[in-house]
């Protein structure tokens, strides 16, 4: 007697994101073994990330080099200026990148930290005299040449700078990783006299020694992030009386570029993974990174390989935090809509990314700006400045409740949304072999409206997303199975709504 086909539904597969820690054995279809160039969309589906929409038309100043840092400066008149760094230059503008590097100022590294403060934009990099773009002069000039500048010495040529509590704060100097300098009140170019000062935190590290990597202002605290520990100072409104409120041992920060404020929390990348300051303070623990616990090993491996610089962005409009490993062209995307049961954020992975810089600090435009070899772009569209990128999803190994019983996949029926005209490859495999069989199909272009014609003679629905339901005949057998879906994203979005499988079960092994 013929056996009835069993229908297995993977609804919104991978809506918990990537899990490379325990997904293989957990066999939870809510996770993905691979989720490349994907995000978790607002419906909880695994969907293609957006690409890079180019904004720059003239990039001769870059001379083939990428933009490695972006900052948007909004002056007191409400005007917006985009500044970027690359090719050892300070650049201004988006469409036309104009070299604003001060005359006779030599730059050999583009690892700048930029911060808005009191109608000026400050550029800090270790070993370099800080640069100042002033709204009043519309010039980028060395800090010491700014009228009224004081105390600008090589001792305060810091790598890290923040503007907080009415001052600039800088740290991480050549040969001095334990001192923090603060400027005079509201005068970012005055570093001696007035209410300026410094603090040497070398005696405050809970483990006896550490080095300052980053600074942050959060929840009325001054946060000092070292490589292995964190200092929390209260009362930084008056730096001379601020006191150590808390210390955290065993958790540090790998780069000042990874620190992002999410409004209610502070997120940073530690050597043990992505961290939330609020949770770290609560738990007082040095356990493996909570926010990235589903991809911790991968993150740690990438950090260990990383020799260059990081960048990051918290993009509330899309509700994700991105961490860029520039040299390795890798980005991890963490969805901030909600946490999983273990407190982790849902993660996806963007490999082989051309992105070299991220900036999502302009809350007015709502754009996330991207630096790359083509200049400046924004997170939009579904190509990387015209180039396709590959979406890839692979389910974890699924035993469907009985690892000892053979399974025979007869049909795979994915329900996809979007991706018209883009070839899609579906593969299935058994027993940890991801390519036992495959099929390719290309959904028809969605040039017509959902209902064939516009309901009111206008194309109101003509650009609606196309739901694709395809039935693929599959073969083979095994005790566990996995499904892989890949597609080159080249202008259209693609979301995985559901994957339905019809299968037979066989004898027990």
């Amino acid at each position, binding site marked *: 007697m013929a056996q009835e086909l069993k229908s297995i539904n993977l609804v919104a597969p991978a809506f918990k994101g990537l899990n490379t820690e325990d997904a293989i054995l957990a066999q939870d279809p809510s996770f993905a073994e691979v989720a490349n160039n994907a995000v978790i969309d607002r419906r909880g589906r695994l969907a293609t990330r957006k690409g890079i929409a180019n904004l720059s038309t003239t990039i001769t100043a870059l001379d083939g080099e990428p933009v490695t840092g972006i900052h948007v400066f909004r002056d007191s008149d409400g005007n917006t200026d985009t500044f970027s760094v690359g090719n050892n230059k300070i650049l201004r503008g988006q469409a036309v990148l104009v070299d604003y590097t001060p005359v006779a100022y030599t730059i050999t590294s583009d690892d700048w930290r930029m911060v808005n403060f009191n109608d000026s934009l400050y550029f800090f990099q270790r070993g370099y005299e800080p640069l100042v773009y002033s709204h009043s002069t519309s010039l980028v000039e060395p800090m010491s040449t700014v009228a009224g500048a004081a105390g600008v010495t090589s001792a305060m040529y810091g790598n890290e700078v923040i503007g907080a509590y009415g001052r600039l704060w800088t740290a991480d100097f050549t040969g001095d990783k*334990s*001192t923090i300098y603060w400027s*005079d009140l509201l005068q970012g170019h005055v570093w*001696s*006299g*007035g*209410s*300026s*000062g*410094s*603090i*040497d*935190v*070398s*005696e*405050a590290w809970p483990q006896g020694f550490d080095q300052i990597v980053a600074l942050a202002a959060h929840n009325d605290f001054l946060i000092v992030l070292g490589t292995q520990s964190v*200092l929390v*100072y209260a009362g930084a409104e008056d*730096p*001379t*009386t*601020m*006191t*150590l409120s808390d*210390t955290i041992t065993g958790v540090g920060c790998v780069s000042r570029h990874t620190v992002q404020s999410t409004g209610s929390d502070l997120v940073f990348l530690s050597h043990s993974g992505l961290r939330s300051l609020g949770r770290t303070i609560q738990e007082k623990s040095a356990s493996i990174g909570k926010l990235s616990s589903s991809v911790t090993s991968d993150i740690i491996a990438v950090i260990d390989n990383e020799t260059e610089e990081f960048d990051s962005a918290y993009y509330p409009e899309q509700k994700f935090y991105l961490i860029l490993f520039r040299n390795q062209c890798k980005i991890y995307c963490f969805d901030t809509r909600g946490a999983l049961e273990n407190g982790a954020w849902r993660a996806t992975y963007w490999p082989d990314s051309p992105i070299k810089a991220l900036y999502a600090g302009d809350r007015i435009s709502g754009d996330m700006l991207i630096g790359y070899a083509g200049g400046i772009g924004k997170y939009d569209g579904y190509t990387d400045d015209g180039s396709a990128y590959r979406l890839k999803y692979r389910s974890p190994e699924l035993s469907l409740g009985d690892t000892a019983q053979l399974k025979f996949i007869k049909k795979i029926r994915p329900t996809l949304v979007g991706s018209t005209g883009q070839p899609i490859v579906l593969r299935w495999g058994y027993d940890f072999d991801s390519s036992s069989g495959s099929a390719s199909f290309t959904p028809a272009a969605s040039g017509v409206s959902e209902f064939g014609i516009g309901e009111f003679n206008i194309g109101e629905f003509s650009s609606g997303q196309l739901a694709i339901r395809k039935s693929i005949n599959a073969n083979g057998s095994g005790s566990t199975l996995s499904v892989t879906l890949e597609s080159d994203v080249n202008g259209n979005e693609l979301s995985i709504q559901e994957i339905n499988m019809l299968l037979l079960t066989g004898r027990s092994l």
Partner: protein
Amino acid sequence: MSSLLGDLLGLGAGGALTHKAYEDIGAAGDTARQELTNLAGTMEQKLGFKPYGITSATGGQFNVTQGPDGQLSTSMQLSPQEQALYEQQMANAGMFFNQAAMPTDQREQEVYNRMRAAQSPEEERQRLALESRLYNQGRGGVRSAMFGGTPEQLAMAKAQAEQRDKSMLAAMQFAGQEQQRQAGLGQGMLASAYVPQAQLLAGLQPGMNAAEQARINQAAAAQAYGETYTSGLDALLQSRMSQANLASSLGGGLMSGSLAGLFS
């Protein structure tokens, strides 16, 4: 013939008696002059200065002597113990006066140093407590343009500076007072150095009174002697004068009778 001879003999005898009376009166004057001269010498001896000395109960001596030229000289001699005390006290007085005369800056510094030595341990304890508090607050390394370090460190530094200022002023005041005290002590020592001498002089008064009394007695005795002597001499001269007058009267009578006989 016999009467003439008798008259002549009577005239001659009368003249001789008169002459003898005359000579005796002259001899009586010479005797009076000589005796009075002798008396004057005797009185001079009797009323002349007699050197004397006084010895106090503590051994000090006061002597009045007369030199060959008649000039008086006095000398005082303290006892060895008194002399030693005098010398000691003089030396002490000199020492205190020297100290009082010294500039006070060095002494001020010494006093200041001792005050600071007394204050420093507590200041160090307070500094360590603040340092510990700042360390526990993670503020050990604060350097500010406004305060140098932290406000608490500035406050402590100001307090300690004020304390140092007060100590310095107190040291100056103390050194001045000490200078006055040393001058007073010098004066006291100097005064006490002269106490043996003063006491010797004080002890001199009874001795001088006794000497004066002796001198008065001696003067009275001399006066009585002189008066007695002159009374004796006066009686002697009176008897001599009476003898002379008798001889003169006898001689004059003889002569008058003889003359009357011759011319009768």
